[in-house]
């Protein structure tokens, strides 16, 4: 049975007339790694809030349809029960940090305190989670003294420590350098391998292609495409609808028009692009020593 089940979900924020989510139907199996892409304003963050129970419990407005996670329907639940199953790392970590704690360690323990985890276990869990995301050295720092990238790691860790069954991440690496991004994707991938369900909003298409099982393209509050990364991320519908795509895909599409793309289908990753272009490279353009 699907762990996440959305049926005909439509939502309007208070005092607005236009629904931000329109008739969303979405089933996610336990352990699936689903990436959500879409232009700004497509409803990605709103979808995250809906999955995390902030809608309808924190944001008012008008929610119709049913939102079910782990067999519980959000209308019939309370947030304190909901958070045991779903964790959300915010797009802007600054908005997530409680403001009630002086150190990163305490911040990470905050959620566990609230659900009454025994002290010993709490400390163990916080230490393990910090190791996982590589922030052990930040334990005694104030959450507010950190850089954007570090705050994002703290925000992610404070959710991981709760060990939710469904992990919802709203652009978790937007303020990180490429190596930070790679490390965090490694952590998320790890979580997914251990059977955690991951729903990730992300613009960095190259990473999605490597790790996600499935991609959902959201546009104007509706699901435009839903399928495997290799299909969704190379769809010609993406560029025409304002979605960002990988440079590998766009250059290959152009090359195909020019008759110099020899791959079967358009590439999303570097390896796919290398394979498809290899035979198209003129000999005189090749330097003496090929790099790996």
């Amino acid at each position: 049975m699907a762990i996440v089940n959305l049926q005909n979900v439509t939502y309007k924020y208070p005092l607005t007339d236009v629904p931000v989510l329109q008739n969303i139907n979405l089933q996610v199996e336990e352990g699936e790694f689903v990436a959500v892409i879409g232009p700004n304003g497509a409803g990605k963050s709103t979808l995250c809030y809906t999955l995390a129970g902030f809608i309808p419990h924190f944001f008012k407005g008008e929610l119709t349809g049913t939102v079910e996670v782990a067999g519980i329907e959000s209308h019939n639940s309370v947030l304190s029960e909901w958070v045991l199953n779903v964790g959300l790392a915010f797009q802007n970590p600054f908005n997530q940090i409680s403001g009630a704690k002086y150190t990163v360690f305490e911040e990470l323990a905050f959620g566990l305190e609230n659900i009454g985890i025994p002290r010993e276990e709490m400390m163990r869990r916080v230490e393990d989670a910090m190791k996982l995301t590589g922030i052990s050295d930040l334990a005694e720092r104030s959450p507010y003294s950190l850089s954007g990238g570090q705050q994002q790691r703290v925000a992610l860790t404070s959710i991981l420590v709760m060990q939710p069954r469904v992990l919802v991440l709203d652009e978790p690496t937007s303020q990180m350098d490429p190596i930070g991004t790679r490390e965090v994707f490694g952590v998320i991938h790890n979580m997914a391998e251990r059977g955690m369900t991951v729903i990730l909003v992300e613009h960095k298409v190259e990473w999605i292609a490597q790790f996600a099982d499935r991609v959902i393209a959201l546009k104007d509050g509706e699901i435009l495409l839903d399928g495997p990364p290799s299909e969704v991320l190379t769809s010609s519908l993406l560029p025409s609808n304002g979605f960002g795509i990988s440079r590998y895909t766009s250059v290959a599409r152009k090359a195909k028009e020019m008759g110099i793309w020899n791959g079967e289908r358009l590439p999303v990753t570097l390896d796919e692009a290398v394979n498809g272009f290899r035979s198209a490279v003129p000999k005189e353009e090749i330097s003496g020593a090929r790099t790996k």
Partner: protein
Amino acid sequence: MKIEIKDLHFTYPTGVEALRGISLMVETGEQVAIVGQNGAGKTTLVKHLNGLLQPSRGQVLIGDWDTTKHSVAKLASRVGYVFQNPDEQLFSRNVGAEVAFGPKNLGFEDERIRELVNDALALTQLLDKTETNPYDLSATWRKMVAFASILSMDTDILILDEPTTGQDAVNVARIAHVLVELRKRGKTVITITHDIDFCAENFERVIAMSQGKILLDGKANDVLGQDEILASTYVDPPQLTRLAKRLGLKNTVRNQEEFLNALKK
């Protein structure tokens, strides 16, 4: 307006040595991207350009002004700074007032303020949002409001700290379009970015920083092709640069046009 930085050192009160001998010339009208890992000193460096930070050692010249001899308020007439996080700089009730705040403070005539505000809103495609409260806009649009509120000050130098963070393809294209317009107007632009593909496609000169020093400074193709040096500051070359390298192309390419041209030969 020219920027000249001479052997700049900066140590934070905590003892962290964030800049360790930066020397740099940026000519009038140049557009320069600064890349490098978190903590490399990029933001610390640009905060010296409008006097938010003062050198521990060395000198920063904005045109003929030494930044230690002029107030931040005075320097604001020459250097506009768009913060990474727009929420750190927005405070007005509506977009129009926000964008008018800067030029008003520079003491411009009403007529000129109107023109500058209108121009900045048009460039950032915000004309239909003049009456909106910035905090009723999405984070994406707030970022454009922050950009517009600096554009309207008509400074000769603009600093953009991570302009594409959290922006979708359409907005990145909008920002690139503003950069083209600024180039036409002869504005000097310094941009900090982690978005290496954006950097490759929009900047002719790239500076890579690491641990408070300049690692590489030169033409985009020369800098972006140095994958091993870039790796030491946690930067991956742009996607098409990496692709060309893997395919064994002898010249460094950084955008679609250069890549396809190499294949067509």
